[in-house]
């Protein structure tokens, strides 16, 4: 599974993270090339979210390294990684519930537009921030819901807002943790269409349970089982990989019948 890529945007080497006796990430290595949509799949408990959290800095690995855009970010806190262009969306919606949709996105834009130790002028009147927010909301189809409080948005809209917030940080790499989680059929289809658009502009790491979506979108797929990479390759290679089929015994139908 050695990568032939010369200059990956993200390089993970020999990452280990254990909780008690359980190795949630077990000597994991992974490369993500600029411009690709790299999906990470695996059965429940394979350590996908643990991996994402280590990539964004919410969780520190026990050993191993994470390099992003040629820089070692292994020990960098999450707010600094965000500044370098690493954005994430959360599996369980993680927004500012008592703010409007526009405020949520504007705050993300603000974090990447100069400093925020400004105490006097009204932030809501800063046109560049509001414009950036509106643009990101339009992107995900939420333009009309800009002034609605997050707690009043539907689940599907909140998932889209997660994406808009991530986009507003102008990321080089977007880490999406199950963006389809809990979405209905039409909402899922909309999300897939949206991701198809986004992948033209930004490198994406996608963790997803929806196999149909994964095989429709991914350039490359990495399969995790018990924190280890058991296979990595293009969708066709993964579909025909025996080890992957075994790991997904319960879900085998899902792997083989779609795409």
């Amino acid at each position, binding site marked *: 599974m050695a990568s032939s890529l010369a200059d990956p945007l993200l390089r993970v080497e020999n990452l280990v993270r254990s909780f008690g006796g359980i190795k949630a990430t077990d000597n994991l290595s992974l490369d993500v090339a600029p411009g690709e949509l790299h999906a990470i799949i695996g059965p429940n408990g394979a350590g996908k979210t643990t991996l994402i959290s280590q990539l964004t800095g919410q969780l520190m690995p026990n050993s191993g390294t994470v390099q992003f855009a040629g820089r070692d970010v292994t020990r960098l806190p999450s707010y600094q990684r965000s500044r370098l262009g690493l954005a994430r969306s959360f599996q369980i919606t993680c*927004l500012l*519930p008592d703010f409007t949709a526009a405020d949520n996105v504007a705050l993300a834009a*603000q974090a990447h537009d100069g400093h925020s130790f400004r105490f006097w002028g009204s932030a809501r009147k800063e046109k560049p921030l509001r414009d950036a927010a509106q643009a990101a909301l339009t992107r995900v189809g939420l333009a009309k819901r800009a002034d609605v409080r997050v707690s009043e948005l539907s689940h599907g809209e909140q998932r889209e807002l997660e994406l808009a917030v991530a986009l507003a940080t102008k990321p080089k790499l977007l880490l999406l943790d199950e963006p389809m989680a809990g979405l209905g059929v039409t909402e899922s289809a909309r999300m897939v269409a949206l991701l198809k658009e986004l992948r033209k502009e930004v490198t994406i790491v996608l963790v997803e349970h929806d196999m149909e979506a994964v095989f429709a979108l991914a350039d490359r797929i990495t399969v995790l089982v018990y924190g280890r990479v058991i296979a990595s390759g293009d969708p066709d290679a993964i579909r025909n990989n025996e080890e992957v089929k075994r790991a997904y015994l319960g879900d085998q139908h899902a792997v083989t019948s779609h795409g």
Partner: protein
Amino acid sequence: MKFQINVRNVVVALTVLGLLLLPVYSTLSGNAFILTLFTRFVIFALAAASLNLIMGYGGMMSFGHAAYLGIGGYAVGILAFEGIGSGFIQWPIALAASALYALVIGALSLRTRGVYFIMITLAFAQMAYYIASGMSRYGGDDGLTIYKRSTFGGLIDLSNRVQFYYLCLGCLFGGIYLIWRIINSRFGMVVQGVRSNEQRMQAIGYHANRYRLVCFVISGTICGLAGALLANNTDFISPATMYWTRSGELMVMVVFGGMGSLFGPVLGTIVFLLLEELLSQFTEYWALIMGPLLLLIVLFARGGIMGLLGRFGRG
């Protein structure tokens, strides 16, 4: 800002008007007591408003806010005792000392969250209380009498009841205006964002604790000003000013008025202190009535008085 006519805003406007006109009433009616009473209310309202900045907007439940009242007060008292009577020296030192204390306490206690944060801020305030009790040169337990109020080179006479009242009121309105600007600024948006969801704010690139700390220091500094006013008002400062029950009262004033509403702490303070004043005339067990009242507010009116008024307006 759009100004709508609703119950809440009418009450706020009437309160502001009432506070502005109070000295007129006091002079015409010859009731000097009410002015003295409200001077104290206004000073505590400033302290409560400063606490509201971190509690209501920043989500930081500081249980040691009375320490700043003491620090601001002692700065004035000690300097006066040592023969430095100018407010131009006393007050900046009162503010700087409060800011410094907030910086140190904040840097240490903001590593914790929730109950631990409440406990650690309480512990530090109690420490300040015992330090003040131990300062035998400055009266120790008995406190320090301030024989001469701060002087401002003839600009304003703090011994004049009306002038002093207007100074306190000016500080209160100025403080609230400052807080209003802050909460709507970039900085204030970040602080409120961190209260709402810290993990999210970190993920989009904010070093949450840095903003919390600065907010904590601003709040402490404003409360230090209230302390300087309080010492001048009572001509006296003692460790009791910093006692933990005083911190608790400040929290109650904020909750009474409505956490996270700009003007709530002012109403909360006035209602709380007025009730205390009235009830204590009837019975020394006034806390027996105040306690259940607070309970009712917490249980049925989460937004405090401001929340109730808001609901009233809609219904």
